[in-house]
């Protein structure tokens, strides 16, 4: 009764219910500037999908697949191939095979035992929004389909429409038609990682959590109540995980998400770049909401000001509990990190929003103010 009264009052006054309150970035998520201080190894617009293979690190930009030559200060990206659709995810099987997510179409296998195979459908569902892929072995691919309503590039609309149509599929590449759905009704699954015993970790972006899927069992929260939207997950060399959170939550966005009529009219009438919504990068246009005094003082952008975009990489232990984090705050220049890959004792982070790849020391201790 009291809860019902409180909900009614909250709805009337516009007070956020607990699930809409953005948790503080504190403890292991305490802000720092380590992402901004990290050496930039590559500047490339739209950089995304870092994958380590035996031949080196691969990455993508739009429709292009590229190889990263060197990880030092002067790395270059060498074009390998161009695809028909934008690449939305990338996974390597360790034996020369690549799973390439084709945004709006499906998953294309390049090289290896299943070269040329295109998986467009899993069960009865079209894989039109492949956001993450993971090889469990050479013949078994796990794919996250972010949404049934649109391509991965239209993620912002999926969030603002509050869709919960994502799913995770296990596909036997020898019999692609017989795919098994590991979980459905997910709120934009955006990252996958192997968790041992045939289980996978899935980052569920719009529910701000990471869940563990084991067989047909219901998803189990391993990390919840995040202050930003989780995306890519990558295994760490020390047995833990790296988690990229590609955009920040803030109270204004949470408020707008609760105002359905306003939200729908905003989506109908305004260009997505100018929505009150999270973004991979921001500050480029004066048409963006929240400008001026709220964000700047003496013409300097306040690091703690509300921002549509942010850079955040979290180091987690083997139980997926955060132990440290690397930030690029509101005034930073490594926003919208969507891909991570640890190689040769360095962690490479691809910031699609800012269009750059930075190299981090995986053992850097933010609490000591250690340099990345």
């Amino acid at each position: 009764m009291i809860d019902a009264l409180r909900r009614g009052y909250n709805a009337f006054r516009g007070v956020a219910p607990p699930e809409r309150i953005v948790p503080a970035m504190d403890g292991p998520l305490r802000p720092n500037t380590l992402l901004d201080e990290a050496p930039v190894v590559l500047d490339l617009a739209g950089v995304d999908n870092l994958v380590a293979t035996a031949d080196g690190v691969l990455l993508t930009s739009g429709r292009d697949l590229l190889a990263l030559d060197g990880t030092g200060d002067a790395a270059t990206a060498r074009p390998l191939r161009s695809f028909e659709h934008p690449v939305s995810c990338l996974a390597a099987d360790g034996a020369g095979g690549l799973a390439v997510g084709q945004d709006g179409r499906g998953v294309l296998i390049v090289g290896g035992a299943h070269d040329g195979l295109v998986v467009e459908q899993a069960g009865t569902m079209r894989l039109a929004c492949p956001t993450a892929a993971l090889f469990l072995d050479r013949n078994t691919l796990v794919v996250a389909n972010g949404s049934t309503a649109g391509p991965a590039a239209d993620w912002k609309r999926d969030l603002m429409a509050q869709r919960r149509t994502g799913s995770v599929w296990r596909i036997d590449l020898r019999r692609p038609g017989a795919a098994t759905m590991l979980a459905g009704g997910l709120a934009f699954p955006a990252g996958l990682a192997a968790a041992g015993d045939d289980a996978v970790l899935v980052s569920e972006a719009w529910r701000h959590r990471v869940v563990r899927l084991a067989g047909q069992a219901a998803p189990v929260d391993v990390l919840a109540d995040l202050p930003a939207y989780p995306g890519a997950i990558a295994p760490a060399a020390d047995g833990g995980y790296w988690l990229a959170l590609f955009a920040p939550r803030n109270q204004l966005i949470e408020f707008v998400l609760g105002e359905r009529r306003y939200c729908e009219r905003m989506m109908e009438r305004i260009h997505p770049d100018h929505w009150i919504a999270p973004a991979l990068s921001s500050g480029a246009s004066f048409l963006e909401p929240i400008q001026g005094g709220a964000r700047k003082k003496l013409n300097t952008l306040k690091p703690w000001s509300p921002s549509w975009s942010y850079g955040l990489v979290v180091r987690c232990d083997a139980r997926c509990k955060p132990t440290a984090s690397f930030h690029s705050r509101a005034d930073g220049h490594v926003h919208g990190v969507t891909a991570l890959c640890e190689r040769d004792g360095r962690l490479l982070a691809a910031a699609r929003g800012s269009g750059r790849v930075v190299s981090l020391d995986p053992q850097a201790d933010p609490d000591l103010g250690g340099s990345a």
Partner: protein
Amino acid sequence: MSALLELRNATKEFRGIAAFKDIDFALRPGELHAILGENGAGKSTLTKVLAGVYQLTAGTMLFDGEPLTLKSPLEARHRGIAMVFQETNLVPSMTVAQNIYLGEEKMFNRLRGLYIQAQRFLLSLNFYVDPMALVSSLGAAKKQMVEIARAVHHKARLIIFDEPTASLTPEEKFHFFNLVRRLKEDGVTIIFISHALEEALALSDRITVLRDGALVVTDDTANFDRERIVQAMVGRSLSTELYGQAGKRRARPYGEKILSIQNLSMGSIVRNTSFSIYSGQITGLFGLVGAGRTETMKIVGGVVKRDFFHGGAVILDGRPVRYRTPRPAVKDGIVYVTEDRKIEGFFETMSIAGNIQIGDVATGSNPLTVVSYARARRLAAEWKERLGVKAIDSDAKMIELSGGNQQKVVIAKASIQKPKLIIFDEPTRGVDVGAIVEIHKFIEELADDGIAVVVISSYLPEILALSDRILVSRQGRVVEEMTIDTATEAKIMFAAVH
């Protein structure tokens, strides 16, 4: 110089157990004499004998060279001896002015005149206390001020202060020290008991150290330093144990997020504060008086309620909670150890075992369960040994214990509830250095066992010595977070003030 007051072979026993034994003590006229010692060393008992609360079991007391036996504090006051007790002895239902002039009432009292007189007197002491306020509405610091004012008002020749500064703010302490110096200039002899060794070193002319009921040393203050005092008090050097770990250790790693406070508000005291608490760590919460630290944690522990509609959220293990009383909080594993142990921490006329038993019962055992006093005594004996409570036995009444031992029982009472989050509010206020080390060690053990520990303290060395992670509160909200690796006193204080 002949002594104003002298004790010869003085012994005081309770039920055959000596609180102090064969003490020879002399007080010079006009001096400021500090008496130091661990809790249970016999300081309070000694001073209570001087103030007429207790009578000596053996030995003699001389005042102005004449033998003296005081039968009551009233008699002591008539002789010019006043004592400001550690726990204030004011009448809560009376106003400040009525308390100051208690015992001097006339047949017909003109309250207005009394208030004006009290106001002038309090201002002359630089104590900003409303004379018309009911004592029950005052905080601990202001009650202490009224107690001091009452002693000064009686124009005593000898004033005994038992831990007068334990609950005063730095500014109030400054005024208090000035007052003490002024009294000394006026020829008043002062005995000063304090656990803050720096205060004793800065203020006193001579220092006496007691240990286990025996007088260890009396010497001029100029011949003492902190290390010598501590060594005399505990019989060994504590320089590496007492606040010695600050800056020399690494923080414990973050455990599970046990508690998440989001936009918590309560009136104008707690204002939209957000932070998290992790298991297996000690989170220090620092702030100046009025920063809302205690109130925030009292909301978490169910001691007070947050605002109903705009109160924000308290999320325990991922579940929103709003406690109306401490009992459901205790059941959920949250325990709050109060800063005001005498009022909120224990029942003073009950025994140690009885108090610890209350903590055990509060965990929510079956109401039909027969409460076993034998079990209570067994538990009390275990905790008495674990925390080093100095008492005759588990049946000793709380009122008979020294401040530090009372605090240990309060901590035992809380710890027996097997919490997953334990909040210590000023855990070592009014506690001696030896007990501080023991309490700190126990708090560290709790964190090592994976329990989430919050320590609220106004004493920066304590925050730095204990905490893995430090939150700084200002004007009702947490404004800064730092780890022990990077925190310094200057950084913390800057965050607390600016």
